[in-house]
């Protein structure tokens, strides 16, 4: 998704035709969990902050393997978020439970490939080039 997301944002989301949601996979254990918790905690402050953090985390993907909460707080600071609130949120059991619930939902849908997508409930496994994505979205819009 990351590679085609800018085009989808410009051509579909900006026009009000598509809304995006993110369902986390935590296949890489602790680092995945920490990044997901950070995005969730940002969202707790403001829904759009979830997406700003989402974008930043993908941009800084290389740093996430050895990341700790200090780096996450730095990210939050860079986005103008309440760093203390974010730091204390990182251990919030409610957030952990929410992530666990969503991972279980993903597993229940039989989604194994990463990334995978759902377009109005139709599952698409694996990454796609933008033209293929656009074709699927255009067909869905005609329905």
């Amino acid at each position, binding site marked *: *998704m*990351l590679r085609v997301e800018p085009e*989808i*944002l410009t051509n*579909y*989301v*900006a*026009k*009000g*035709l*598509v*809304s*995006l*949601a*993110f*369902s*986390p*996979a*935590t*296949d*890489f254990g602790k*680092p*995945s969990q920490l*990044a*997901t918790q950070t*995005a969730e905690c940002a*969202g707790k402050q*403001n*829904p*759009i902050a*979830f*997406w700003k953090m*989402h974008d930043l*985390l*993908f941009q800084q*993907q290389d740093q*996430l*393997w050895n990341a700790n909460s200090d780096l996450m707080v730095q990210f939050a600071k860079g986005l103008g978020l309440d760093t203390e609130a974010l730091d204390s949120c990182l251990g919030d059991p409610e957030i952990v439970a*929410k992530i666990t*619930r*969503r991972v279980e939902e*993903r597993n229940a849908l039989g*989604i194994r490939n*990463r*990334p*995978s*997508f*759902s*377009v*109005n409930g139709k599952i698409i496994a694996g990454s796609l080039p933008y033209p293929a994505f656009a074709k699927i*979205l255009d067909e*869905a*819009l005609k329905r």
Partner: protein
Amino acid sequence: MKLKLSWVVVSLLLAACGSTAPQPPATATVIAVVQPTEVSAMSTVAPTDTPASSPTAPATAEATVAPTVVVTEATASTDWVNTASVDGDFYVRGNPSAPIRLIDFSDFL
């Protein structure tokens, strides 16, 4: 006889004048051309009065235009990319009423 002849001449002259008399219809045609212009000019005013079923016609006319403009502007100017909402467990980016919901099942790593 002379008198009778002059009467005929006068009659012919009068008849000749009478033949030019039908010109007024031409003038009437001109008026007819002008009139529709006036009517159409009035008809542009008429719609303002048409929704006169409501008490104040001008206010109604403005009210019918204004909301349309507001809706159009709201749709066109909404920055959906920087708009997010909460839907259940999801933070949704974009128009929450968009015809397509695209869920990305991904790992940040």
